[in-house]
């Protein structure tokens, strides 16, 4: 890894950390560390997109969906199971799950044995419709029972009650599974179709997470997820921590916040380094060279006997899994799962800006892009507010236009992102750290 370093990349990373340090000195260290933590997660997501786009040229705009799948893994793994809900509706859900599997098997069998033509279409449609009604006969009452169990506190099945760090793996697997299904359908079609298909599936995933209350509590959110790191309150009360804070000459409350954020940052850095190391290894392996060969000339690669669709499916699954891991990490950091917070601009398109700005095809570029763009995204708001304040300083305090401009400053960040993307695309299309 090290021998690939060039001075440009080192300088850019140094500048990035200097900017973060400036935030630490000028605003506050907890804030700077909060930005760092999200930068780390963004960097992992952008590595995932880079695997798909940079290695293989796959245009996936369903990043939000995979991140949300990772997020739901956080809930399903870490929350203790709600026994009452399981007793009330667990069997119903189980039966409907079996029925769903049964329907799929019958459909496959029917598709094999009935000769093709209109009869087959009718038979398949009839089986599917009958299956849906049969499943819902068990499913709907079970859901009603589950959601009736203390709706204000639970009203869902809960999870497995395992350590939340496990969910990072589970999130990756979940995202990979869904990516396999989408990839089977949409890969092999032209890039525009993959884009629309992934956009659609991500909207559907988020709609499901919002509405299937029995599984995720829906828009009622799941908060208070267990943490992999100590709680601030406990730290503040323990003697050793107070002593430590005193020796360092920092307030106990501020130090506890910094300490917790540093713990998260440590965990995230480990994951980032593992993913980055694996990405670098695979990119520089024969497999990586093959992927780039396919990306640059599919016809030629196909003539050399490479299975284009198969490789695409592989890389699509890998990239989505990485995004899923990052999604689970985000839920872990937030300590809560809020389906309504998944917005395509925040979770899909901004990740794309990170990859393009950082340098598509270059893993270090993707990481840098994750840092730079997240930093700009966070800092665009105060800077926008300041800018509006300066611009309107000549105006009267109660002026309607001034009020409107100050209130709307928050939307500056969207425009900033757009301008950054367009400028990079035009003047430096290979990004900050170009591919070698």
């Amino acid at each position, binding site marked *: 890894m090290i021998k690939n370093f060039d001075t440009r990349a080192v300088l850019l990373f140094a500048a990035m950390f200097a900017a973060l340090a400036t935030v630490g000195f000028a605003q506050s260290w907890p804030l700077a560390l909060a930005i760092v933590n999200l930068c780390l997660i963004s960097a992992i997501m952008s590595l995932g997109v880079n695997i798909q786009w940079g290695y293989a040229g796959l245009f996936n705009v369903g990043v939000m969906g995979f991140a949300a799948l990772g997020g739901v893994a956080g809930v399903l793994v870490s929350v203790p199971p709600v026994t009452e809900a399981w007793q009330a509706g667990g069997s119903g859900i189980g039966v409907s799950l079996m029925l769903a599997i049964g329907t799929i098997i019958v459909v496959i069998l029917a598709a094999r044995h009935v000769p093709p033509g209109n009869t087959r279409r009718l038979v398949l449609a009839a089986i599917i419709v009958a299956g849906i009604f049969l499943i819902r006969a068990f499913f709907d009452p079970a859901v009603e029972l589950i959601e009736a169990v203390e709706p204000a506190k639970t009203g869902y099945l809960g999870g497995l009650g395992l350590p939340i760090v496990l969910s990072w793996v589970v999130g990756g697997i979940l995202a990979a599974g869904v990516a396999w299904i989408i990839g089977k359908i949409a890969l092999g*079609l032209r890039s525009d179709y993959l884009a629309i298909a992934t*956009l659609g599936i991500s909207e559907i995933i988020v709609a499901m997470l919002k509405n299937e209350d029995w599984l995720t509590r829906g828009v009622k959110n799941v908060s208070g997820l267990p943490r992999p790191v100590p709680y601030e309150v406990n730290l503040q009360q323990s003697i050793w921590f107070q002593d430590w804070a005193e020796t360092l000459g920092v307030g106990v409350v501020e130090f506890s916040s910094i300490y917790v954020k540093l713990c998260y940052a440590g965990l995230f850095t480990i994951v980032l380094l593992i993913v980055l190391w694996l990405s670098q290894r695979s990119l520089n392996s024969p497999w990586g060279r093959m992927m780039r060969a396919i990306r640059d000339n599919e016809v030629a690669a196909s003539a050399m006997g490479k299975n284009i669709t198969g490789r695409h499916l592989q890389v699509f699954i890998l990239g989505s899994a990485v995004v899923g891991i990052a999604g689970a990490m985000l839920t872990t950091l937030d300590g809560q799962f809020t389906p309504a917070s998944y917005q395509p601009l925040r979770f899909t398109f901004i990740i794309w800006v990170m990859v393009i700005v950082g340098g598509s095809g270059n893993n270090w570029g993707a990481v840098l892009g994750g840092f730079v763009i997240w930093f700009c995204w966070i800092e665009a708001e105060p800077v926008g507010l300041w800018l509006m304040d300066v611009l309107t300083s000549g105006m009267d305090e109660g002026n309607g236009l001034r009020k409107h401009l100050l209130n709307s400053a928050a939307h500056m960040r969207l425009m900033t992102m*757009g301008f950054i993307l*367009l400028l990079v*695309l035009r003047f430096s299309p290979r990004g900050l750290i170009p591919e070698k």
Partner: protein
Amino acid sequence: MDGPLNSFLLLSNFVLVPGMAYGSQLAIGALGVTLVYGILRFSNFAHGDTMAFGTMAVILVTWLLQSWGVSISPLPTALLALPFGIIATIALLLLTDRWVYRFFRREKAAPVVFLIASVGVMFVMNGLVRFIIGPNDQRFADGERFIIKAREFKRLTGMSEGVTFKTSQGLTILTAVIVVAALFWFLNRTRAGKSMRAYSDNEDLALLSGINPERVVMITWILAAALATIAGTLYGLDKSFKPFTYFQLLLPIFASAIVGGLGNPLGAIAGGFIIAFSEVTVTYAYKKFLAYNLPPDWAPESLMQLLSTDYKFAVSFVILVLVLLIRPTGIFKGKAT
């Protein structure tokens, strides 16, 4: 004996009329996407936000007109403001083309570069709209709200089911017919329209016959701006205006365009209605409909809804996937393979 007739009226009220209106809105939106795809050869991700921008311009002019006391009641004032909104959107799209897309055209960049550029444009337009009018719901419909109210319908016909026909729905369907007729007249009868079709069919041949590509592109953006503004305004009148909803319309609009065959205007219209009617029929609760048609003791207790309305995206998506699997070029043969 009134059962079947009443059930038909019920379906008209909740499926047929809303489906027609929504289908018209999608069709006009998909026409814009498909035209841009046919000429510039990329999927324009900024189309939803172009619609939002156009509608916003219309809303602002509507408010101005309302404050002057101008009104064309019973029709909504927005119709009067529509031309101004179209002009503003045309200006915006032509500027975007000049500042963003023209550079990539000269570079002969790959379609996916255009697509990414359109994502950048989407961000800027989205920010612009939220910056000017804010992210919240805006209602701007005025004038007479209904052509027929359910109660009047019941009184006139003596049926127990009424049909409501909103002005916005009537306007939408009427406008769609006019817009589509005008567009096809333009594409088939005028010199500019023919040059557009020629360029879309075979770029090299069109260039050889002396067609000016920049002019064709300019006309395309003008048409796209007009279609986006009209579709956006009609949708806003029918439901309400919210920037994020317009962004989300991207999915059904793309689904319509692809289902019909990208680059094929006729396909875009058919696709719009297919998507709209599937969405409405699948998410409609058939309880009352069945109660009218079945013997009383067979009447279902549940809502008999195939899919909750929250999953309407899933409908566009499933149709899209089915068409892509069975007939990847769309129902009417489109350009993409």
